[in-house]
Protein backbone atom coordinates (compact mmCIF):
# COMPACT_ATOMS: atom_id res chain seq x y z
CA UNK A 1 0.00 0.00 0.00
CA UNK A 2 1.68 3.16 -1.08
CA UNK A 3 1.70 6.28 -3.19
CA UNK A 4 4.64 6.61 -5.55
CA UNK A 5 4.38 10.04 -7.11
CA UNK A 6 2.07 12.73 -8.42
CA UNK A 7 2.09 14.96 -11.49
CA UNK A 8 -0.11 17.95 -12.28
CA UNK A 9 -0.18 19.11 -15.90
CA UNK A 10 -1.93 22.16 -17.29
CA UNK A 11 -3.96 22.24 -20.49
CA UNK A 12 -0.89 23.05 -22.56
CA UNK A 13 1.12 20.13 -21.31
CA UNK A 14 3.50 21.90 -18.99
CA UNK A 15 4.08 20.17 -15.72
CA UNK A 16 2.90 22.47 -12.94
CA UNK A 17 3.79 20.26 -10.07
CA UNK A 18 5.63 17.08 -9.33
CA UNK A 19 6.38 15.30 -6.11
CA UNK A 20 7.38 11.79 -5.20
CA UNK A 21 7.02 9.81 -2.03
CA UNK A 22 8.10 6.25 -2.48
CA UNK A 23 9.78 5.93 -5.80
CA UNK A 24 12.54 3.37 -5.79
CA UNK A 25 13.43 3.49 -9.45
CA UNK A 26 14.19 6.71 -11.31
CA UNK A 27 13.68 7.13 -15.02
CA UNK A 28 17.33 7.88 -15.80
CA UNK A 29 16.42 10.92 -17.87
CA UNK A 30 16.04 14.52 -16.82
CA UNK A 31 12.82 15.48 -15.09
CA UNK A 32 11.89 17.77 -17.96
CA UNK A 33 12.19 14.91 -20.41
CA UNK A 34 10.23 12.66 -18.11
CA UNK A 35 7.38 15.19 -17.90
CA UNK A 36 7.27 15.48 -21.67
CA UNK A 37 7.30 11.74 -22.06
CA UNK A 38 4.53 11.35 -19.50
CA UNK A 39 2.39 14.04 -21.06
CA UNK A 40 2.90 12.66 -24.54
CA UNK A 41 1.79 9.25 -23.40
CA UNK A 42 -1.28 10.62 -21.63
CA UNK A 43 -2.19 12.64 -24.68
CA UNK A 44 -1.92 9.57 -26.88
CA UNK A 45 -3.86 7.38 -24.48
CA UNK A 46 -6.63 9.94 -24.39
CA UNK A 47 -7.01 10.03 -28.13
CA UNK A 48 -6.53 6.25 -28.39
CA UNK A 49 -9.20 5.61 -25.80
CA UNK A 50 -11.69 7.97 -27.38
CA UNK A 51 -11.18 6.47 -30.84
CA UNK A 52 -11.29 2.84 -29.74
CA UNK A 53 -14.29 3.08 -27.46
CA UNK A 54 -17.31 1.34 -28.97
CA UNK A 55 -19.60 3.64 -27.02
CA UNK A 56 -19.75 7.29 -26.10
CA UNK A 57 -17.76 7.85 -22.99
CA UNK A 58 -18.41 10.06 -20.04
CA UNK A 59 -15.11 10.16 -18.24
CA UNK A 60 -12.75 8.63 -20.80
CA UNK A 61 -9.42 7.38 -19.59
CA UNK A 62 -9.35 6.61 -15.85
CA UNK A 63 -6.33 4.45 -15.05
CA UNK A 64 -3.99 1.72 -16.21
CA UNK A 65 -1.99 -0.86 -14.38
CA UNK A 66 1.12 -2.90 -14.95
CA UNK A 67 2.47 -5.81 -12.93
CA UNK A 68 3.89 -3.40 -10.36
CA UNK A 69 1.97 -0.16 -10.23
CA UNK A 70 -1.24 1.60 -11.17
CA UNK A 71 -1.51 5.01 -12.78
CA UNK A 72 -4.62 7.02 -11.85
CA UNK A 73 -5.73 9.83 -14.11
CA UNK A 74 -8.19 12.66 -13.50
CA UNK A 75 -8.86 15.45 -15.94
CA UNK A 76 -11.00 18.51 -15.27
CA UNK A 77 -13.20 20.14 -17.90
CA UNK A 78 -10.69 22.98 -17.94
CA UNK A 79 -7.96 20.57 -19.03
CA UNK A 80 -5.97 20.24 -15.82
CA UNK A 81 -4.59 16.74 -15.46
CA UNK A 82 -3.85 15.02 -12.18
CA UNK A 83 -1.79 11.85 -12.38
CA UNK A 84 -0.93 9.67 -9.43
CA UNK A 85 0.99 6.42 -9.34
CA UNK A 86 0.28 3.97 -6.58
CA UNK A 87 0.84 0.31 -6.04
CA UNK A 88 -1.75 -2.21 -7.17
CA UNK A 89 -3.68 -2.38 -3.92
CA UNK A 90 -5.21 1.06 -4.54
CA UNK A 91 -8.11 0.31 -6.79
CA UNK A 92 -9.65 3.73 -7.20
CA UNK A 93 -8.09 7.09 -6.43
CA UNK A 94 -10.61 9.25 -8.22
CA UNK A 95 -11.97 10.86 -5.06
CA UNK A 96 -8.44 11.54 -3.90
CA UNK A 97 -7.50 13.30 -7.12
CA UNK A 98 -10.76 15.21 -7.12
CA UNK A 99 -10.07 16.31 -3.58
CA UNK A 100 -6.59 17.50 -4.54
CA UNK A 101 -8.13 19.54 -7.33
CA UNK A 102 -11.07 21.10 -5.56
CA UNK A 103 -9.77 21.52 -2.04
CA UNK A 104 -6.05 22.04 -2.52
CA UNK A 105 -5.38 23.23 -6.05
CA UNK A 106 -8.35 25.55 -6.45
CA UNK A 107 -8.16 26.95 -2.93
CA UNK A 108 -4.42 27.44 -2.67
CA UNK A 109 -3.37 28.03 -6.25
CA UNK A 110 -6.25 29.38 -8.32
CA UNK A 111 -7.51 31.66 -5.57
CA UNK A 112 -4.06 33.04 -4.93
CA UNK A 113 -3.75 35.93 -7.37
CA UNK A 114 0.00 36.02 -7.00
CA UNK A 115 0.43 32.58 -8.53
CA UNK A 116 0.94 33.03 -12.27
CA UNK A 117 -0.89 30.52 -14.42
CA UNK A 118 0.89 28.11 -16.73
CA UNK A 119 4.11 28.02 -14.76
CA UNK A 120 5.50 25.43 -12.39
CA UNK A 121 4.09 25.92 -8.92
CA UNK A 122 6.32 27.59 -6.44
CA UNK A 123 3.98 27.57 -3.48
CA UNK A 124 5.26 26.11 -0.24
CA UNK A 125 1.80 26.17 1.24
CA UNK A 126 0.42 24.00 -1.55
CA UNK A 127 3.41 21.67 -1.33
CA UNK A 128 3.15 21.11 2.41
CA UNK A 129 -0.62 20.78 2.46
CA UNK A 130 -0.52 18.30 -0.39
CA UNK A 131 2.25 16.37 1.28
CA UNK A 132 0.35 16.07 4.54
CA UNK A 133 -2.83 15.14 2.68
CA UNK A 134 -1.07 12.36 0.78
CA UNK A 135 0.60 11.12 3.95
CA UNK A 136 -2.76 11.01 5.71
CA UNK A 137 -4.33 8.80 3.03
CA UNK A 138 -5.38 5.40 4.32
CA UNK A 139 -3.28 3.71 1.64
CA UNK A 140 -0.16 5.76 2.22
CA UNK A 141 2.18 3.50 4.10
CA UNK A 142 5.76 3.30 2.88
CA UNK A 143 6.85 0.53 5.23
CA UNK A 144 4.35 -1.96 3.93
CA UNK A 145 5.44 -1.30 0.35
Amino acid at each position, binding site marked *: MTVHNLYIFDRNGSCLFYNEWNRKKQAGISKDEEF*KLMYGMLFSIRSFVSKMSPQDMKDGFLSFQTSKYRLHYYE*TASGLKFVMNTDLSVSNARDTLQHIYS*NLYVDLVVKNPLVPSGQPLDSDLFGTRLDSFIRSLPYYSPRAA
Partner: protein
Amino acid sequence: MSRQSNRTTDSKKMNSELFTLTYGALVTQLCKDYENDEEVNKQLDKMGYNIGVRLIEDFLARSSIGRCQDFRETADIIAKVAFKTYLGITPSVTNWSPGGDEFSLILENNPLADFVELPDNHSTLIYSNLLCGVLRGALEMVQMAVDVKFAQDSLRGDNVTEIRMKFIKRIEENLPAGEE
Protein backbone atom coordinates in the same frame (compact mmCIF):
# COMPACT_ATOMS: atom_id res chain seq x y z
CA MET B 1 -21.63 13.19 -3.24
CA SER B 2 -20.90 13.98 0.38
CA ARG B 3 -17.87 16.16 -0.32
CA GLN B 4 -19.96 18.42 -2.45
CA SER B 5 -22.79 18.92 -0.02
CA ASN B 6 -20.30 19.78 2.72
CA ARG B 7 -18.88 22.44 0.52
CA THR B 8 -22.11 24.16 -0.28
CA THR B 9 -23.27 24.27 3.30
CA ASP B 10 -20.08 25.79 4.63
CA SER B 11 -19.58 28.27 1.83
CA LYS B 12 -20.63 31.47 3.51
CA LYS B 13 -23.17 33.69 1.87
CA MET B 14 -21.82 37.18 1.57
CA ASN B 15 -23.93 40.27 1.66
CA SER B 16 -24.29 41.11 -2.01
CA GLU B 17 -24.43 44.84 -1.32
CA LEU B 18 -20.78 44.83 -0.39
CA PHE B 19 -20.01 43.29 -3.76
CA THR B 20 -22.26 45.70 -5.62
CA LEU B 21 -20.77 48.73 -3.93
CA THR B 22 -17.22 47.50 -4.43
CA TYR B 23 -17.95 47.06 -8.10
CA GLY B 24 -19.40 50.57 -8.21
CA ALA B 25 -16.24 51.96 -6.66
CA LEU B 26 -14.18 50.13 -9.28
CA VAL B 27 -16.20 51.58 -12.16
CA THR B 28 -16.04 55.04 -10.62
CA GLN B 29 -12.29 54.85 -10.36
CA LEU B 30 -11.95 53.64 -13.94
CA CYS B 31 -14.09 56.53 -15.14
CA LYS B 32 -11.71 58.89 -13.35
CA ASP B 33 -8.63 57.17 -14.72
CA TYR B 34 -9.68 56.99 -18.35
CA GLU B 35 -10.86 59.72 -20.60
CA ASN B 36 -13.60 57.95 -22.45
CA ASP B 37 -16.22 55.28 -21.84
CA GLU B 38 -14.87 53.02 -24.58
CA GLU B 39 -11.65 52.63 -22.68
CA VAL B 40 -13.49 51.94 -19.43
CA ASN B 41 -15.57 49.28 -21.18
CA LYS B 42 -12.37 47.70 -22.45
CA GLN B 43 -10.72 47.68 -19.04
CA LEU B 44 -13.80 46.15 -17.41
CA ASP B 45 -13.87 43.43 -20.03
CA LYS B 46 -10.18 42.73 -19.50
CA MET B 47 -10.54 42.51 -15.72
CA GLY B 48 -13.55 40.27 -16.14
CA TYR B 49 -11.57 37.99 -18.43
CA ASN B 50 -8.84 37.63 -15.83
CA ILE B 51 -11.44 36.81 -13.20
CA GLY B 52 -13.20 34.36 -15.50
CA VAL B 53 -10.13 32.25 -16.23
CA ARG B 54 -9.75 31.65 -12.50
CA LEU B 55 -13.41 31.54 -11.57
CA ILE B 56 -14.02 28.60 -13.91
CA GLU B 57 -11.79 26.40 -11.75
CA ASP B 58 -13.74 27.29 -8.63
CA PHE B 59 -16.96 26.64 -10.49
CA LEU B 60 -15.88 23.23 -11.80
CA ALA B 61 -14.54 22.18 -8.42
CA ARG B 62 -17.72 23.23 -6.64
CA SER B 63 -20.28 21.91 -9.08
CA SER B 64 -18.42 18.83 -10.35
CA ILE B 65 -19.88 19.43 -13.79
CA GLY B 66 -18.05 17.82 -16.67
CA ARG B 67 -17.70 18.89 -20.28
CA CYS B 68 -20.82 20.13 -22.04
CA GLN B 69 -21.99 18.23 -25.07
CA ASP B 70 -23.43 21.22 -26.88
CA PHE B 71 -23.98 24.96 -26.63
CA ARG B 72 -27.52 24.52 -25.33
CA GLU B 73 -26.27 22.61 -22.34
CA THR B 74 -23.66 25.32 -21.82
CA ALA B 75 -26.36 28.00 -21.87
CA ASP B 76 -28.40 26.09 -19.34
CA ILE B 77 -25.53 25.64 -16.95
CA ILE B 78 -24.47 29.28 -17.19
CA ALA B 79 -27.97 30.52 -16.47
CA LYS B 80 -29.17 27.98 -13.93
CA VAL B 81 -26.00 27.04 -12.09
CA ALA B 82 -23.29 29.66 -12.57
CA PHE B 83 -25.36 32.84 -12.32
CA LYS B 84 -27.25 31.32 -9.43
CA THR B 85 -24.07 30.42 -7.57
CA TYR B 86 -22.22 33.66 -8.00
CA LEU B 87 -24.89 36.34 -8.36
CA GLY B 88 -27.96 34.70 -6.88
CA ILE B 89 -30.08 35.21 -9.98
CA THR B 90 -31.30 32.93 -12.75
CA PRO B 91 -31.44 34.69 -16.11
CA SER B 92 -33.71 33.25 -18.77
CA VAL B 93 -32.22 31.79 -21.93
CA THR B 94 -33.98 32.95 -25.10
CA ASN B 95 -33.62 34.08 -28.70
CA TRP B 96 -31.78 31.05 -30.00
CA SER B 97 -30.44 31.51 -33.49
CA PRO B 98 -31.61 28.85 -35.97
CA GLY B 99 -28.12 27.35 -36.04
CA GLY B 100 -28.09 27.01 -32.26
CA ASP B 101 -24.86 28.96 -31.95
CA GLU B 102 -26.28 32.16 -30.48
CA PHE B 103 -28.52 32.90 -27.55
CA SER B 104 -29.45 35.64 -25.13
CA LEU B 105 -29.41 35.79 -21.37
CA ILE B 106 -32.18 38.04 -20.11
CA LEU B 107 -31.51 39.51 -16.68
CA GLU B 108 -34.60 40.77 -14.92
CA ASN B 109 -32.52 42.63 -12.44
CA ASN B 110 -28.82 43.19 -12.59
CA PRO B 111 -27.22 42.77 -9.18
CA LEU B 112 -24.17 44.79 -10.23
CA ALA B 113 -26.31 47.83 -10.97
CA ASP B 114 -28.63 47.88 -7.98
CA PHE B 115 -27.93 51.45 -6.98
CA VAL B 116 -26.89 52.91 -10.29
CA GLU B 117 -28.21 55.64 -12.48
CA LEU B 118 -26.09 56.55 -15.47
CA PRO B 119 -25.40 60.26 -15.86
CA ASP B 120 -25.90 61.72 -19.33
CA ASN B 121 -22.21 62.15 -19.99
CA HIS B 122 -21.67 58.39 -19.74
CA SER B 123 -24.16 57.29 -22.34
CA THR B 124 -21.75 54.80 -23.94
CA LEU B 125 -20.56 53.25 -20.70
CA ILE B 126 -21.45 49.57 -20.49
CA TYR B 127 -21.66 49.55 -16.75
CA SER B 128 -21.62 45.78 -16.18
CA ASN B 129 -19.18 44.94 -18.94
CA LEU B 130 -17.11 42.95 -16.44
CA LEU B 131 -19.66 40.15 -16.80
CA CYS B 132 -18.89 39.78 -20.51
CA GLY B 133 -15.22 39.34 -19.75
CA VAL B 134 -15.95 36.80 -17.03
CA LEU B 135 -18.12 34.71 -19.35
CA ARG B 136 -15.62 34.87 -22.18
CA GLY B 137 -12.64 34.00 -19.98
CA ALA B 138 -14.38 31.15 -18.22
CA LEU B 139 -15.63 29.57 -21.45
CA GLU B 140 -12.24 29.90 -23.09
CA MET B 141 -10.84 27.69 -20.35
CA VAL B 142 -13.26 24.94 -21.31
CA GLN B 143 -12.25 25.16 -24.97
CA MET B 144 -15.01 27.44 -26.22
CA ALA B 145 -14.30 30.69 -27.99
CA VAL B 146 -17.40 32.81 -27.48
CA ASP B 147 -18.31 36.37 -28.30
CA VAL B 148 -20.17 38.06 -25.42
CA LYS B 149 -21.75 41.49 -25.38
CA PHE B 150 -24.57 43.52 -23.93
CA ALA B 151 -27.34 43.83 -26.50
CA GLN B 152 -29.66 45.73 -24.17
CA ASP B 153 -29.10 47.38 -20.84
CA SER B 154 -31.84 48.64 -18.58
CA LEU B 155 -29.41 51.26 -17.29
CA ARG B 156 -29.45 52.77 -20.75
CA GLY B 157 -33.19 52.87 -21.05
CA ASP B 158 -33.93 49.41 -22.47
CA ASN B 159 -36.71 47.35 -20.95
CA VAL B 160 -34.48 44.49 -19.96
CA THR B 161 -30.82 43.67 -19.69
CA GLU B 162 -29.74 41.26 -22.39
CA ILE B 163 -26.37 39.57 -22.79
CA ARG B 164 -25.87 38.09 -26.24
CA MET B 165 -23.58 35.08 -26.53
CA LYS B 166 -22.26 33.82 -29.85
CA PHE B 167 -20.30 30.60 -30.20
CA ILE B 168 -17.30 31.15 -32.44
CA LYS B 169 -15.35 27.92 -32.39
CA ARG B 170 -14.06 25.05 -30.38
CA ILE B 171 -10.48 25.55 -29.26
CA GLU B 172 -8.60 22.38 -30.12
CA GLU B 173 -6.14 20.92 -27.71
CA ASN B 174 -2.76 20.34 -29.28
CA LEU B 175 0.40 18.61 -28.34
CA PRO B 176 2.90 21.22 -27.24
CA ALA B 177 5.34 22.18 -29.96
CA GLY B 178 8.66 20.42 -30.17
CA GLU B 179 7.35 17.05 -29.24
CA GLU B 180 6.93 14.00 -31.34
